[in-house]
């Protein structure tokens, strides 16, 4: 099973760049995940103003550049891990050296999780 752990750092954009201390603690944690053989991938994200948002209304796409005053919580980074249960993923997330932040743990869909008709659609459109 795979789980995506989204980090919501709970800081303002001007404080986005982490301190050396915080990076060091986080690196230790990442290393622990790696040494446990469960880390598949991870990344830290630049502040939202370096990115943008595409929103859709009735199928119409609108691009908005940052910063986003209304976005209270934005993703600061993610880990993709392999775990044997949701509880194990949650336990790993709770070991993250966070101060004031939130980590959302989400299980990745596997093909078998979909109903048969969705699986068939995947087969037809992306197979072959």
């Amino acid at each position, binding site marked *: *099973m795979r789980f995506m752990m989204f980090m919501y750092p709970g800081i303002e954009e001007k404080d986005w760049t982490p301190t050396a201390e915080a990076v060091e603690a986080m690196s230790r944690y990442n290393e622990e995940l*790696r040494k446990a*053989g469960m880390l598949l991938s991870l990344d830290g994200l630049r502040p939202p103003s370096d990115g943008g948002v595409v929103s859709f209304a009735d199928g119409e796409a609108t691009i908005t550049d940052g910063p986003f005053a209304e976005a209270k919580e934005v993703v600061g980074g993610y880990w993709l891990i*392999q775990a*044997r*249960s949701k509880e*194990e993923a*949650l336990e790993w997330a709770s070991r993250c050296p966070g101060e004031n932040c939130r980590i959302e743990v989400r299980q990745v869909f596997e093909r078998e999780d979909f109903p048969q008709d969705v699986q068939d659609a995947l087969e037809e459109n992306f*197979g*072959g």
Partner: protein
Amino acid sequence: MTEAKRAIEAVWRIESARLVAGLARMVQDVGLAEDLAQDALVAALERWPATGVPDNPGAWLMATAKNRAIDRMRRQATYERKQEQIARETGALFAMERSDFEAAADDEIGDDLLALIFTCCHPLLSREARVALTLRLLGGLTTPEIARAFLTSEATIAQRLVRAKKALREARVPFEAPRGAELDERLPSVLEVVYLVFNEGYAASGGEDWVRRDLCEEALRLGRILAERSPREPEAHGLVALLEIQGSRLAARHGPGGEPILLLDQDRGRWDPLLIVRGLRALERAESLPGALGPYSLQAAIAASHARAIRAEETDWVKIAALYEALAQIQPSPIVDLNRAVALGMAFGPEAGLELLDQIQGEPALANNHLLPSVRGDLLKKAGRNEEAASEFKRAAELTANERERELLLARAETLA
């Protein structure tokens, strides 16, 4: 299962191997270490539902195991025991009271875990025993889970585990990770266990019990742990590379009815790109280390050649044939030759493949194997020798034990007639 119990189980899964490893270093007996760790788990199951999981559950479990060990040793009447046992237990007790777990350096914990892997995979144990003990102590799998994964009875696995621990105790196998020449000598028996675990999961079809399918993920996890902790061993990275790339094909290996799909017929869009990238990176690490490529690295390089081809027609068969030749040199086997014949046929035309098949025709290991006539039939068909090809397919059909495969082979013979 209650929520609290599931949370404890998750902590256990994360901590148990390190706990057993740390305890085994002190008591120099993995069987005793496991009993002590189990005592700590029982204590956690009693306490944590009320108190909540402590901040540092690993340290809590270790301290509890240590206390239980001391209690246990004090409770036992000394006069009943042999001198040597008393000496060992006193030594262990002394080591326990002195050692400070929380202060133990990360490296040391790493070494303990490595020592546990090597002890579970000790060459004095049978292959089956090594696999069971590794899944039990490093994977934290229960006896029923191991039995389900290997389609055997709980009693068989339980007995296998008991005997393995007894054998290690009686042989007084020191609890340590081997170094230098001994490491090179013992590494293959560890890699073999990881590979066997993976293959057991790989052999399971999509619809089967999760315990069986999860063996692949567990093997990958064990392989990565091993490679992280022995970074200078090219074959550890080679094995990880092989498993990541083979693992990338898991979703593409079976059709909707569970029927196997051959590599060249697989829908490559279903191959997991993340695992492919991870596999290629692990292979690069293996290749960057000094020395010629070992058998796992070579197999990984072959798997990587397939993974790099976006379409089956783009496969670099010349390279694959050369890799099989290198593999045949260090690990000669008729099956490797058979694969090499296929690669030669793809790279240089059917005659090149047939020439090699003629050389291995008399191999006793292939006498009743349907693959030999099946591959020969393929090559003959490509050479336009349809009549001979048809009779080879018929012969292969007689030899295969798989009903679906038999039908397929007979159908091929039919179209050539």
